[in-house]
């Protein structure tokens, strides 16, 4: 993946993409504000959500063990995966053990994060995405660009074209004469997927929440595809990040109020399913929970950055972000785009790659993401913290071990400038001389910086150099106390 600035540069010139994104983000932004305004205790719910999640993270080892015990007691089997490869191996093994070669999937960020579909395909297993937006992405051989609405970058005309062209390759073809009305497109998806649901023997899901106390898993959704995958197959495999725990059943009362309003701007999403292990003759006979780390414990080790693990994947921060709105989700080079992606991806994956080192800069630090976050993640704080790591390097935890990372490449000019500043600030004579020279030559300063500073000044106005250095002004006027009348160098 190219670094964010390059990927974003291409995206902002795509008029269709920008139009689709602007329409979608502005629509949902307004709706969400209304849904939140309906509950007078939003601030209290937000604070409670933050505190519950923080408490859980501070005792994650205990809650993980409790969850394992309660899921097992309810008839489920718990598996632990340290990284993506291990998680994929476990799921592949579990699917093969059923003798099946296809699975139906509920939309899940965790399985996208680990690249499960590709791993299954390499083993000859077809994974069918059943969320409408994920279906659009899968049929279009595309990548998701939004956490909640993965096909947000596509308009109805593009979707009609994808359905008409691709559905027959995967199963039931699109109806003849398919138009681009959302109702007809949704109906085509219904017919196409129903044949898969009715024969599916294995379902794969994620989960929005796991309750440590009871071993209950929760999936919130709208279409009913989730319910299909969670209840019709004989085997259900849920792949969930270890941070998705809440301690008790009662804690759900907070998140079931904040998540729908923040994500789809509804009082409640159309369907919520909860299941606790297996139930005789209702739903899957076998239930497997695969708990994945994949960088989460490394994130947990960072006292500033760990708050990113509070995220409940509502995607409200994407919809308010001026950078996301213009650059689109693909530019972030991760399944987690937008402001949350800019802090989550470099923590889960480390800042070693060009894209991950660039993500903490994919923000204007305007703070809208923090204001809108239902669990009060201070995204700007973490962004600045990660920028520091990228520029200066330092001690971090990778795969459970403390390591020291070097400053990322590409920040040499910034570091050189900082070194020069340190030198000048510790030598008052040199600083004064330099400032005077700068003031007297201000007329001749270029509008952009030469050399390595060129890219920086290409998108920013250089600050004007004052006519007189502040230190000279202070000395001349006694800090502004002496009557004016001394030499005025500005004239």
């Amino acid at each position, binding site marked *: 993946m190219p670094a964010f600035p390059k990927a974003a540069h291409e995206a902002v010139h795509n008029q269709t993409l920008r139009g689709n994104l602007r329409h979608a983000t502005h629509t949902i932004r307004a709706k969400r504000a209304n849904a939140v305004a309906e509950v007078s205790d939003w601030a209290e719910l937000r604070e409670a959500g933050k505190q519950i999640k923080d408490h859980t993270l501070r005792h994650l080892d205990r809650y993980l063990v409790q969850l394992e015990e309660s899921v097992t007691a309810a008839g489920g089997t718990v598996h632990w995966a340290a990284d993506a490869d291990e998680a994929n191996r476990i799921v592949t093994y579990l699917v093969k053990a059923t003798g099946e070669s296809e699975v139906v999937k509920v939309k899940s960020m965790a399985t996208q994060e680990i690249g499960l579909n590709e791993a299954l395909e390499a083993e000859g297993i077809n994974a069918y995405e059943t969320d409408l937006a994920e279906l659009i992405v899968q049929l279009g051989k595309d990548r998701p660009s939004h956490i909640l609405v993965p096909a947000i970058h596509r308009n109805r005309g593009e979707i009609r074209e994808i359905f008409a062209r691709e559905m027959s390759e995967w199963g039931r073809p699109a109806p003849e004469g398919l138009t681009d009305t959302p109702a007809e497109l949704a109906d085509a998806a219904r017919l196409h997927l129903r044949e898969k649901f009715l024969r599916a023997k294995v379902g794969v899901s994620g989960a929005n929440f796991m309750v440590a106390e009871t071993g209950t898993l929760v999936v919130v959704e709208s279409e009913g595809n989730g319910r299909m995958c969670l209840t019709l197959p004989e085997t259900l495999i849920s792949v969930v990040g270890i941070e998705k725990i809440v301690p008790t059943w009662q804690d759900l009362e907070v998140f079931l109020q904040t998540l729908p309003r923040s994500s789809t701007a*509804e009082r409640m999403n159309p369907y919520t399913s909860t299941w606790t292990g297996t139930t005789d003759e209702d739903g899957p006979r076998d239930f497997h929970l695969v708990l994945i780390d994949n960088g989460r414990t490394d994130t947990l080790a960072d006292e500033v950055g760990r708050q990113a693990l509070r995220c409940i994947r509502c995607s409200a921060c994407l919809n308010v972000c001026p950078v996301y709105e213009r650059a689109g989700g693909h530019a972030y080079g991760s399944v987690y785009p937008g402001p949350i992606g800019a802090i989550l991806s470099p923590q889960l994956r480390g800042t070693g790659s060009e894209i991950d080192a660039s993500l903490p800069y994919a923000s204007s630090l305007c703070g809208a993401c923090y204001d809108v976050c239902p669990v009060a993640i201070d995204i700007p704080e973490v962004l600045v913290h990660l920028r520091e790591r990228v520029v200066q390097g330092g001690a971090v935890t990778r795969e459970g071990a403390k390591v020291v990372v070097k400053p990322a490449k590409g920040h040499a000019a910034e570091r050189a400038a900082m070194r020069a500043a340190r030198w000048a600030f510790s030598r008052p004579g040199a600083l004064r001389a330099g400032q005077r020279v700068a003031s007297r030559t201000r007329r001749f300063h270029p509008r952009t910086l030469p050399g390595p500073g060129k890219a920086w000044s290409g998108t920013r106005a250089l600050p004007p150099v004052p006519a007189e250095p502040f230190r000279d002004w202070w000395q001349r006027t006694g800090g502004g106390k002496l009557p004016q009348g001394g030499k005025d160098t500005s004239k």
Partner: protein
Amino acid sequence: MSSRDLILARVRRALADVPRDDTPYDQAFARPYLREHGHRSVAETVDLLAENLADYRALVHRCTAGELAATIARLLAERGSAAVCVPTGLDPAWLAATEVTRVPDSAANTPAELDRVDSVVTACAVAVAETGTIVLDGSVDQGRRRITLVPDHHICVVRVPDQVVSSVPQGLERLDPARPLTWISGPSATSDIELDRVEGVHGPRTLEVVLVSGE
């Protein structure tokens, strides 16, 4: 070392800054939020449920217990339903006024067989007024989760006011997490195409809720 032990060890190392005697769960945070939003009489709470259900395009009907059988018969007839799936513990009186073929909920029914059923009639466990949500918990009058999923038409009977609560916190209190729960707020819907809401993708495209009062 197993991955389980590896992950737990990583978690513990990551949390080296957290004091051993960190505040326990029951003292870790307050619950300063509301138990319900606004003050309503019982009748107003039922009205709010009806209003919010309708806002999410569920069709809401109200009747007395004595009128229930006739109401259900009418709804099935208007729909032209020939076969209705029936949970094993559903009060037989509810379907006493209709002649449609009954398909008892059974583990032996295949999903394809369920797909040929026109309608399903169930009771519910609790309904949440503020969000317009009905919750099914798999009791004998509600049946398996799939019977309210595969058929295209779901009639759900809510006894008012005793099955109605105001809020999500009050709803959770009444539910047993050990049971498989389905929370339903309006019919199946998607907003995946340009964020235009479309009712009916994979779940029932028509949800009718009958609010029945009296004995």
